[in-house]
């Protein structure tokens, strides 16, 4: 029984830590599928987390917080778009810039406005997205295994968690079953063909980065307004880059992206749970190795040792209309 409890706890933690990864990963999916590389996911999440927590703290509403988070993340996404779509700047450079601007300004503004060493005030329960108990979770709690899975792993998360997982089929539907999605994928592979068909490459790519902004804003909201009760300096701690790694791991497809995020989330949850404890069969694994594993796996995957990750063909290149 103890073993099952442990597994349930571990999986529950996996779901929790996977959610920001998943939202950020899907965010990156829209942008990168349209041909705009975005290593600024981290910065947009961080800015979103700060704006969300600050707004929720001042106005006492989680919903306003989510709106503010999305607004600021969309703003940063538009800056990225302005630099890389309109001015044909280097997309990597622009993403790096956004990461730094977000990292610096969240601390400076947080300290100036709230004076708690870069934190935002702790949020009360009614200013957060709280866990939702799904119908029947209490009744089923005592049923072995299935009841536990339902009541502990599936039930009891906040609205944003369910939203994040619903975004997976939704994103799949948008990308592969709508006209917008077809064009979005086309513009990431061959923008000239899309242009020839009379569709604006610029406007299409701008819409893609706006989607990225909305989702990274939600990722930030989840971290600061649901998972934690406020913003802490540098709270994303590289999650934006893990999300990027997951995106590559999933070869830019929504459903594998979910599994990649769950895998990386599981590694994280496992590392926290088994910190310094000897694991059966493996022995004592250094916690640093567990932490580095997502990055190592990504490097190995990118090198083509486990299948090949082929990015959208026009990714990273600005589109110059022929004159």
């Amino acid at each position: 029984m103890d073993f099952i409890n442990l597994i349930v706890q571990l999986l529950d933690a996996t779901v929790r830590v996977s959610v920001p990864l998943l939202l950020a990963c899907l965010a990156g999916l829209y942008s990168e599928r349209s041909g705009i590389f975005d290593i600024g996911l981290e910065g947009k999440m961080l800015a979103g987390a700060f704006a969300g927590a600050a707004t929720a703290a001042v106005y006492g509403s989680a919903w306003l917080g989510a709106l503010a988070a999305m607004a600021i993340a969309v703003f940063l996404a538009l800056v990225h778009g302005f630099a890389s779509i309109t001015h044909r700047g280097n997309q990597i450079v622009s993403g790096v810039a956004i990461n730094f601007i977000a990292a610096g300004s969240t601390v400076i503004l947080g300290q100036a406005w709230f004076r708690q060493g870069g934190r935002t005030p702790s949020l009360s329960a009614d200013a957060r997205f709280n866990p939702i108990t799904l119908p029947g979770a209490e009744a089923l709690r005592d049923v072995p295994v299935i009841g536990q899975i339902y009541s502990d792993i599936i039930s009891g998360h906040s609205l944003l968690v369910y939203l994040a997982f619903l975004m997976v089929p939704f994103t799949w539907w948008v990308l592969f079953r709508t006209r917008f999605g077809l064009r979005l994928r086309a513009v990431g592979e061959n923008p000239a063909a899309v242009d020839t068909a009379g569709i604006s490459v610029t406007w299409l790519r701008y819409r893609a980065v706006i989607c990225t902004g909305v989702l990274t804003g939600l990722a930030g909201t989840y971290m600061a307004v649901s998972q934690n009760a406020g913003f802490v300096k540098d709270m994303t701690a590289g999650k934006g880059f893990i999300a990027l790694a997951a995106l590559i791991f999933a070869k830019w497809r929504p459903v594998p992206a979910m599994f990649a995020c769950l895998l990386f989330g599981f590694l994280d949850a496992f590392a926290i749970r088994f910190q310094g404890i000897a694991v059966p069969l493996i022995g004592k694994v250094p916690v640093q190795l567990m932490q580095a594993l997502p990055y190592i796996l990504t490097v190995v995957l990118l090198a083509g040792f486990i299948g090949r990750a082929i990015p959208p063909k026009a990714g990273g290149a600005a589109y110059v209309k022929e004159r």
Partner: protein
Amino acid sequence: MSTPYAKLPGWADYGLIPFINLVVAFLVAGLVVLLVGESPIQAAGLLLKGAFGSAAGIGYTLYYATSFIFTGLAVAVAFHCGLFNIGGEGQAYVGGLGVALVCLTFDGIFPWWINFPLAILGAAAIGGIWAMIPGWLQAKRGSHIVITTIMFNFIAASLMVYLLVGALKPANSMAPQTRTFAEGAHLPKLDWLLEMFGASIRSTPLNLSFVLALVMAVAVWALIWRTRLGYEIRTRGFSPKAARYAGINEARIVVVTMMISGALAGMMALNPVMGDQHRLQLDFVTGAGFVGIAVALMGRSHPAGIVPAAVLFGMLYQGGAEISFVMPDISRDMIVIIQGLVILFAGALEHMFRPAVQTIIASLRPSAMRLGPAKGEGV
């Protein structure tokens, strides 16, 4: 790289446009200061006073600048090859391992002037190898160098934490750092250099690696513009296709360039580890690897631009500390914002003001537009 923009006279291309970009970046930073509720002009005054107002201030400014020259050169060398090495942070971090291993082994045996070259080799070798792997993966397996170098930053951080809380930590200590090196692994300070100009000061961390950084700046210039390898690097950066057509071994150039870049980033570790703290500490790089990106972009990847850009960022680091004494709301993190803004305006948005500048110059001096960039000084 075909730019969709017409040519400008050299002075505008290499002087005016970077200057405008920089000014805009600082104006936006000033807006942030206003938003915090302080006066940007007063902040700028404090910054200058803190950085250059005293000999000690200058010492600290140049100490920080030393690190940024190394990392800036590292990023610039890779830029010339068309590679974006974001891994400077990680390469400098593991470079510290090379310095520490040399110092811990020989600090009681040799004097500093033997240990210094050994430590340079150690830092360059480990930094170079750490960058070589992403380079090799790019050249042979086609993995994107930006992503791999980012991943290697995280792997380096994990590796160094593992070593510093484990093998490198003295048994009787709790702090995650090595033991303090003996006298034989302390680099000479350069206080006398400042005292020569008549200032008597308390000790600053400015040390001999500053001279090494300047030597490296000259060496990088010679490498890129005066050697065959440099020519091949620039050719690869300008057009990989042309390089292949000219019979240049592309894979070799990519790997070698990344090794040089990583070696330069690794040498950054000499400055804090051997020059100032005399022990290997957790997170001793403190973002210098990332500042290198801003420095290289601002200096347009030329050593003659990188050294002043590094001094500017050294000034921001040192002067920033001064500002936060008087204005507690403006902490070190302000520099991170400025860094981001410089990268944004001097890097990603470098072409933003070009059409306007073009129009103005064309209307003022129609003849200037027909001249190519100034001859000889190809930057």
